[in-house]
């Protein structure tokens, strides 16, 4: 077998013709989809900042809620900030562990049996329940017996978050390669140990992603809270388990469509605050997860 006298350099360019064009078009479309998303986001943020930034001062963030007619330099939105933080935190504590555990059952224990397929299907159906129906549901089974409270709000938001956390965690757990699991079993670990120490850490990035999206949605929901926490507060309620409460989305909704300029500025200031709080939390969570994921690898 004769060896070619010269080694031919590998041709690393894209193939000529239609295949290359298709590739280029695909890349352009992908970039375009990102651009398509940035534009409205930019406009929304611009509107929120333009209308709300002037309201943000130290006292705005820490003062009690004034009457709607008051100008923007009177009072603030502290009760709503407190309400959003405590209700969303409680909802997260309720929904995320339950959701992840549920996904663990579906993926690790349930396999393909009818129960886990049914639960998975029902979790999908549950994501389609309108947020307002969730609020009305919690009203009829909880508020009617125990009165208005931040806990009721947390239950309503948690119920909204639960199916999202389950579905996203399930998808992530499913994609953890079996080789990881089998290696752990081979070393003699029990199933719970494998799940807790190998599978979950391997999927933690995706699970946290899904959980963050669920939290972001919960923090921004208005409709369910309208029926279960009452609102109308002027001073903060630090007790999330008892007594009426208020949250930023409710305040935004009430104020931003009011004709009083003070109320409008307060509403948009509250919107800006909510976006800022949620965004900072998301970034923090992603940074923390990335750090742990690095260790896990």
């Amino acid at each position, binding site marked *: 077998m004769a060896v070619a006298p010269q080694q031919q350099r590998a041709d690393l360019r894209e193939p000529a013709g239609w295949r290359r064009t298709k590739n280029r078009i695909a890349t352009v479309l992908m970039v375009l989809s990102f651009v398509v998303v940035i534009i409205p986001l930019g406009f929304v943020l611009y509107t929120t900042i333009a209308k709300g930034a002037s309201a943000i001062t130290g006292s705005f963030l820490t003062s009690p809620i*004034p*009457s*709607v*007619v008051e100008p923007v330099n009177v009072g603030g939105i502290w009760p709503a900030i407190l309400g959003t933080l*405590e209700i969303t*935190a*409680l909802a997260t*504590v309720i929904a995320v562990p339950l959701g992840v555990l549920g996904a663990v059952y579906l993926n690790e224990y349930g396999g393909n049996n009818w129960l886990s397929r049914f639960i998975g299907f029902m979790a999908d159906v549950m994501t389609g329940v309108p947020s307002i129906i969730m609020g009305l549901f919690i009203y009829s089974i909880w*508020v*009617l017996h125990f*009165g*208005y409270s931040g806990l009721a709000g947390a239950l309503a938001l948690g119920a909204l978050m639960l199916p999202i956390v389950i579905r996203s965690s399930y998808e992530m757990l499913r994609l953890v390669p079996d080789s990881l699991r089998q290696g752990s079993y081979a070393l003699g670990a029990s199933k719970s140990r494998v799940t807790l*120490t190998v599978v979950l850490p391997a999927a933690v990035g995706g699970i946290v992603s899904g959980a963050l999206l669920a939290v972001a949605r919960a923090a921004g929901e208005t409709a369910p809270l*309208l*029926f279960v926490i*009452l*609102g*109308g*507060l*002027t*001073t903060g*309620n*630090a*007790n*999330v*388990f*008892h*007594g*009426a409460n208020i949250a930023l989305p409710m305040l935004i909704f*009430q104020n931003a*469509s*009011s*004709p*009083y300029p003070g109320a409008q500025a307060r509403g948009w200031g509250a919107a800006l605050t909510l976006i800022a709080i949620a965004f900072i939390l998301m970034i923090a969570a992603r940074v923390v997860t990335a750090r*742990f994921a690095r*260790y896990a690898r």
Partner: protein
Amino acid sequence: MQRLRVQQVTTAALAIVVSGFSLAACSSSGSGGSGGSSGPSGTLNASGSSFQLLFQQAAIQQFRTIQPNVTVNYGGGGSGKGRSDLAAGTVNFAGSDSPIPSTETANFAGKTVLYFPVVIGPITMSYNLPGVTSLKLTPTVIADIFQAKIKTWNDPAIKAINPGVTLPSTHITLAVRADSSGTTQNFSLFLMTAAPSVWKLGSSSTISWPSGAQAGSGNGGVAQIVHATPGAIGYVDYADAKAAGLTFASVQNKAGQYIVPSTTAASAAAAGVTVAPDLTFAAVWAPGATAYPITYQSWDLVYQKQSSASTAKALKAYLGYLLGAGQKLLPALNYAPLPASIDAKAKAQLSKIG
């Protein structure tokens, strides 16, 4: 080694969260106060009419300075929600722009509900016609406009009652409420009472408006539509219309006079109504030469029998404030205070709570 650190961090975080919640749960509800036998104290929860919302917020703010141990939370949400919350017992009093309708009386079976009228206000016919600063409307014309039988501003029917005003040929855009509301209920009640042969759409908190009507959320939303759309006309609460800087039309009342909406004209309307023994009345289409015809009212509904003496005390204190010193807050908010006779009757009813 790293897993240990992860475990430590997670445990620490969980501990912080759990202790935070238990601290909050164990601490007494901050708004309770120490419930001394001297003054009223406690928390009052209320929901209902958004027409009252402005008044309630201002009153709550002032009431705090008089009775710091009583916390009142008024959540709004609509008259219907207020009534159903009261029926369910989740609120102490409810704001409602209309008396309990027959479909809901079953929810209150066996319990006596007291009506306390608290505020009166006009509903304006706000419009956006550049160059037209004064406009006169009659109930029949309004009914035809809002059923899309009159479609342009220079319609002969409008021209007939506005001699000397140049009306453009702009198409009329209706600005209505997207959400159900007591304002819609009373506006449609006015049309049904004042133009019964013409108005066919009934009286309800939700009306099926003709297609092409633009719907806004809340009085503020309707005001915003009128403000932004030349040729628009909508029904907006007086307080919101003034805050939005809208122009309003004068409406012909029962006595045949064209009245511009104002708090005095609303009080004049309320002064002329017949009040039932339970203090319910309807201020629309009221008699009186200076009465504004589209005036409405709002009540605070309370159970006569209260389960706890301290709640009864707090209710009497707060409602007493609304009917007394609180009425002075109303003109600045562009609402009309109650006529003296109705106010006196309401105050007399306070002692029944207990």
